[in-house]
């Protein structure tokens, strides 16, 4: 049983709703920060404590997204056991913590863990 998807706002609903929703709730809240950066780029110090805090919150939030995608995954990923999803992530994180320039290796190793594990578990 999958939960109901978010319904369109009634008085704005129509054939163009998905485009409107994308512009209002995804493009605008993302793009506004790039615009503000252009507006304030002369006055903002990229190393100020306020921006350091913003950066910390943004990093934690992104990590939170990763955790949510692993724990309650969308689509085909849900067919793979939780332990295997966590293992794939742990392999990636371990490699990155050892050498943070090895992005490609970390991604490939995590993926290989997941695909090989899924292949082995689901083959029966």
């Amino acid at each position, binding site marked *: 049983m999958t939960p109901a*998807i978010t319904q369109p706002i009634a008085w704005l609903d129509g054939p163009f709703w998905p485009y409107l929703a994308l512009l209002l709730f995804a*493009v605008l809240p993302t793009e506004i920060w790039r615009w503000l*950066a252009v507006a304030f780029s002369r006055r903002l110090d990229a190393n100020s404590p306020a921006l350091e805090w913003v950066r910390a*919150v943004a990093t934690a939030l992104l990590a939170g997204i990763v955790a949510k995608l692993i724990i309650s995954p969308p689509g085909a990923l849900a067919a793979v056991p939780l332990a295997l999803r966590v293992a794939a992530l742990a392999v990636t994180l371990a490699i990155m913590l050892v050498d943070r320039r090895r992005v490609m290796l970390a991604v490939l190793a995590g*993926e290989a863990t997941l695909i090989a594990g899924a292949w082995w578990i689901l083959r029966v």
Partner: protein
Amino acid sequence: MALAGMRDALSLPAWVVGLGLIGVGSLARDVGYPVEVAVLSTMLVWAGPSQVIFFASIATGAAWSAIAIAIGFASLRFLPMTVAILPLLKRPGQSVWMELLLAHYVAVTAWTEGLRRLPAVPPPQRVAYFLGFANTCMATSSIGTFLGYYLIGALPIPFAAGLMCLTPIFFLASLSAGLRHRGDVAAILLGLALAPVCDRFIGGGFDLIVAGLIAGTIAFALRPKKAAP
């Protein structure tokens, strides 16, 4: 010079982001949105996390306000990121519109690679180089999104799962690539740990924001104090 940017993008980064956005196409299909919206989200939002939050939150029935706030917070990082990279791209007499266009391309890949590669490019050629690089990444990503929309359902489950898992794995790897000190490590580990907890206790799609604020604030407090100037 734009060609040099394209060449550097195709040496690896463009392929990684292109593969990473395959999952977004599949997420868009899961909530029944048209393929055009999926591809437009790549070109207009140009931020994998925002796109994932958008489509994945719709799939769980989160409130629109919660979706917009979560995306807003997840994208706050673009403010310091853009502020950091613009000085490298600024030219005398450049219009505000050009700066807005350049800022639009700021996202994890173009930013990390830009900061690394731009200083070696002669200043008058940087804009062309950066646009060549970023547009190449955007092109491969748009193709990836499009393919993901149609392809994932047709793949054997281990490979479909592997492609869906590219998004979290790639995010985590890019986040860790930007680690500078223990505050950043704390932000990642606390964010990973707190998000599932908040998911259990806080409803309406606001759990992610709460987890990010708590984990980020603790991480901020843990950051090493700067050496006295």
